[in-house]
């Protein structure tokens, strides 16, 4: 364990403590706000530190000092700490936005005392899923974030939210069950759920059994990442939630699924027998998603469909199974988290200013709210892939990797990617044209936007621009991350350094470690 090992569990532990504290102080909303902002700021600082530290090699912590293959380990390598940093920045911005919204609306409009603890638990679950080096712990992380997301999605319990929530919850439960069954089968086949040990043992088992396990895991993660044809739940459920909740869901939850796919595909199943299937799924996701977006007349639903569509790009990068493809996919994930969250926050601002997100009743916003127009236009162009913004850089990276691959299927996807990009631009320009330039059918209500909401949304837009200016170092980081992914031995030896066992204290008493793993896992599970 390195000297900075103590940092690794903090992104999970600090929000969980904060959540407990915030729940205990439910009568003191102001204190709750301070706690949640402090907790998320700490997570951001820790994540940024890990981002720097992990560049020189993965940082591994065996929780409770129990050695790795049996005890649970947390691993901060380049990929996970990059994801962690981006998600921490996004969650902090969204939190500040929702604080300002709460202040503007008054506390009566939403049960804020529930909102803050749940939001913190959500971030803890996301961090746990990113950092975990243990398949079962990833499941626990997923359940933590899903349980929190169920509460956030149905906040207030209005009819519309219950309708959307029941679809979301049932689909998420099915994917969790699939994941659980996959873990049980993996344990039956290999006798371990530790990712590093699985990387060593999976090549030894029967190839067809391995394929079955891979398909099961992909199905479970595919539902969470909203890959077509497992994506129909997303545009139904996301738009009904409050704007900050939709924003953070859109930015983070699907990306956790994408992250899990990257991790398992690269580390556990490097022979890539599902790559062709993933390619087709990526093509279908891109095209079907964006065609759905073109047909919509509600801004939030339109954005939800573009979200589905752009998941296809990431899956494309993963399915290429080359270092360039993975690097582009990683950069694209970082770009997409920030830009999509920013767009949803701005959609929330539009709803506030114009009284609706339906394009039927919006119009003329560019004249009455020029700042809002700029805030929408930049991320919209970014998502559409206009140079020199980061969406363009990510897409160029993917297209280059696709051309480099050279197979007919990859070239088809390159064409599909360009078409999707153009259709994204078309859908967003159509929305921009109607909402910002044309005269509204009825005059919009006179309202001002609270500065506290505009600033965090603006911060995310600026962060999206920073991805362009910092593209060199960031893309370099993504490339190094993907090199580490293809060289799996770095990860494996970092987790299991000495004779196939982690650096815990229980080298001579494996059985004790096993029985001790129980309370740790259960304690984490109960938080969810």
């Amino acid at each position, binding site marked *: 364990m390195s000297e900075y090992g103590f940092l690794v569990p903090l992104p999970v532990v600090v929000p969980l403590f904060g959540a407990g504290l915030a729940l205990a102080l439910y009568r003191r909303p102001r204190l709750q706000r301070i706690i949640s902002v402090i907790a998320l700021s700490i997570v951001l600082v820790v994540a940024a530190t890990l981002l720097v530290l992990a560049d020189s090699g993965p940082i591994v912590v065996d929780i409770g000092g129990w050695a790795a293959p*049996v005890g649970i380990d947390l691993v901060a390598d380049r990929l996970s700490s990059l994801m962690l940093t981006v998600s921490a920045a996004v969650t902090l911005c969204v939190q500040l936005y929702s604080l300002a919204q709460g202040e503007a609306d008054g506390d009566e409009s939403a049960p804020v005392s529930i909102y803050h603890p749940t939001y913190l638990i959500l971030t803890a679950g996301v961090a746990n899923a990113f950092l975990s080096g243990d398949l079962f712990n990833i499941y626990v992380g997923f359940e933590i974030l899903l349980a929190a997301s*169920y*509460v956030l999605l149905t906040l207030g319990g209005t009819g519309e939210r219950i309708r959307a929530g*029941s679809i979301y919850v049932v689909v998420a439960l099915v994917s969790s069950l699939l994941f659980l069954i996959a873990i049980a089968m993996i344990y039956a086949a290999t006798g371990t759920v530790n990712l590093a040990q699985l990387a060593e043992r999976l090549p030894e088992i029967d190839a067809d059994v391995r394929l079955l396990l891979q398909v099961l895991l992909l199905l479970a993660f595919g539902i969470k990442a909203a890959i077509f044809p497992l994506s129909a739940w997303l545009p139904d459920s996301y738009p009904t939630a409050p704007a900050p909740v939709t924003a953070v869901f859109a930015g983070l939850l699907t990306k956790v699924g994408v992250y899990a796919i990257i991790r398992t595909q690269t580390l556990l199943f490097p022979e890539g027998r599902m790559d062709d299937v993933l390619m087709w799924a990526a093509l279908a996701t891109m095209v079907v998603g964006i065609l759905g977006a073109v047909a919509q007349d509600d801004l939030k639903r339109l954005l939800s469909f573009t979200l589905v569509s752009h998941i296809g790009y990431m899956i494309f990068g993963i399915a290429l199974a080359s270092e360039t493809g993975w690097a582009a996919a990683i950069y694209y994930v970082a770009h997409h988290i920030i830009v999509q969250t920013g767009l949803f926050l701005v959609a929330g601002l539009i709803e506030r200013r114009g009284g609706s997100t339906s394009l*039927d009743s919006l119009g003329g916003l560019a004249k009455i709210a020029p700042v809002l127009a700029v805030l929408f236009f930049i991320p919209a162009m970014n998502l559409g892939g206009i140079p020199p913004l980061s969406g363009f850089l990510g897409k160029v990276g993917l297209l280059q990797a696709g051309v480099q691959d050279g197979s007919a299927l990859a070239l088809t996807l390159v064409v599909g990617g360009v078409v999707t990009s153009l259709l994204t631009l078309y859908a967003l320009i159509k929305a921009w044209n109607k909402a910002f330039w044309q005269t509204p059918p009825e005059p919009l209500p006179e309202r001002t936007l609270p500065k506290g909401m505009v600033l965090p949304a603006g911060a995310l837009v600026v962060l999206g621009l920073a991805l362009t200016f910092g593209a060199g170092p960031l893309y370099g980081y993504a490339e190094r991350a993907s090199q580490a992914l293809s060289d799996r031995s770095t990860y494996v030896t970092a987790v299991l350094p000495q004779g196939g066992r982690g650096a815990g204290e229980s080298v001579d008493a494996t059985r004790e470690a096993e029985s001790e793993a129980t309370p740790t896992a259960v304690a984490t599970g109960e938080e969810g």
Partner: protein
Amino acid sequence: MTIDMSPNLVLVGVIVVLVTAGVYLLLERSLSRVLIGVVLIGNGANLLFLVAGGAAGRPPIVGLEPEGRMSDPLPQAMVLTAIVITLGMTAFLLAMAYRSWQLHQHDEVQDDVEDRRIARLAARDERAFEDADTEESTTTLDEEAAETRDETDDGEPVPVPADGATDQQSHDRTTGQEDR
């Protein structure tokens, strides 16, 4: 030391029944049936973990038994976690079904009306929203072609103006109307 890994066939049979019944119930519309389906599949998955741990053995406490006769404690730990999680989710789903019943007097999963509306619009080939760019006219291309004429075309007979207006003025008037 070999560990007995042959699965217990009774458990496998129970898993098959639980998952089959669970999938059937999941496909129902009523949330409470879906809930029972989730519980059944969840328990099936839990039993699968037990099967994955190999044959049953003595309690896994160091010192009480020789290690070869102990049962594998790791799946048990995972099953405990999974049970706790399933319990939480069941409680939430139950609360949601109850809320749905409060609101609508039933707990069925409803359709997404917005989706249906967009699909109906698409079936009628209508635009999703009114746009100032939408042309009001319903003239077809053929009708437009019949009305349009070449401005430089002098072939057609010039109408003799009764009030002395020039040919050029009347021409402007017609093209102006077409443009509008």
